[in-house]
């Protein structure tokens, strides 16, 4: 596409099929302790 570059991203719709293992870190635990951001957590599902 000439005018649109699409970044490679995880398809959230598809992640509904193989997500939810719960092995990832609790969001607030890691550094902030005063806010909630989930986007910066790593996915730890080896089977995704």
């Amino acid at each position, binding site marked *: 596409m000439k005018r649109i570059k699409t970044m490679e991203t995880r*398809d959230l*719709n598809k992640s509904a099929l193989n997500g939810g293992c719960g092995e990832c870190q609790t969001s607030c635990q890691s550094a902030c302790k005063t806010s909630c951001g989930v986007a910066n957590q790593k996915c730890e599902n080896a089977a995704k």
Partner: protein
Amino acid sequence: MVHQYKLNGYNIVIDTASGSVHSVDEVAYDIIEMYEQHSREEIVREMMARYGHREDVNEAEIEECLDDVAQLKEEGKLFSKDTYEGMAFDFKRTNTVIKALCLHVAHTCNLNCEYCFASQGKYHGERAIMTFEVGKRAIDFLVEHSGSRRNLEVDFFGGEPLMNWQVCKDIVAYARSIEKEKNKNFRFTLTTNGMLVDDEVIEFANREMHNVVLSLDGRKEVHDRLRRDYAGKGSYDVIVPKFQKFAEARGGKDYYMRGTFTHNNVDFTNDIFHMADLGFTELSMEPVVCDPSDPSALTEADLPKLFEQYEILAKDMLRRKREGKPITFYHYMIDLRNGPCIYKRISGCGSGTEYMAVTPWGELYPCHQFVGDEKYSMGNIWDGVTNEAVRDQFKNCNVYARPECKDCWAKLYCSGGCAANAYHATGSINGVYEYGCELFKKRMECAVMIQVAEEEEGI
């Protein structure tokens, strides 16, 4: 839902429901803006009026771009539908696993920081220290309630956990002694103000702690204004050399320099840069959480200045990366390819469900920020969660429980935000701390822009 913004020379389009990110030129940017509300003919006419004078723009080009937009929509990468609401309630209701505990090993502190949400570690109660027996039982409680989850997190928190260091070490030793048999992997975190850090602490933490969070607010005058001992003396000179040694000794293991900015230092990027100058590379800086009447509280007038600061930080991080000396900012960490799944994004931080805080007496609270607020006491580590009403409140607390979040593009990045912040701002965990939302959205725009810039520049 689609969110479009321009930042640092990039035109960025985020498709909320799919998580897709597009970097586009200004013609495509305007086409996407009009796409859902106007006919193709109207869009072609408008684009010709706006850009027809340019050599690279003619009707055929615009038609081609419209076809590209249609293709992305067909592929579910633009204007995709949010179908997650039912999933959000079902997932949290059926999930009974507990996988993380914040252990309040010391409700006391050797600093007397003015802005402390834990009121100098006491959480509005008595000073107290967790015994090993309580800590050991907390570990057993976690294992018993963790189901098949292997990775379990335990944060040594306070007050100041190093004031009860031997118990921290004994708890670690106990957890390590059972983790193989129980098929668990404990990840410990230590959050400390640094006053009692010494070689022994560094050596033990580097062996056993998955992460250490080191509290430093930045420049000496900023740090010492609020982070003082009981004699009123600033702690900067004591802790900085210790932290430098600590961070260097981590040898690649996780650590964060964790600062708080307030109304007194809205130019907080200077504090982040100061930390970078001190040699720290893993940095986190949080807006203060306090009553609006507190002199440290951030104000409406601060907001545009803070937005500017976040942009300055993002641009400077790109500069540092180009020069081969990158720094990490916790809130700009975002992995577009391998980030969290939709379940994580709709269920949030897990407070009151999969994450709880344990007081020195073994009481359970939804998270560290609710400790001391009796109506949120959930039970204890011996009898488990007995206050089902509170647990149910938190089970039903997700991004779709907040009407204000319905039309927000950032909802799958913040997951509805912090329940404690919402509670303190509105009186309800299902409320919305709007000030925090504004800052969060700005941070996400910057974080995504950095990803786009790094991709485009190949850095």
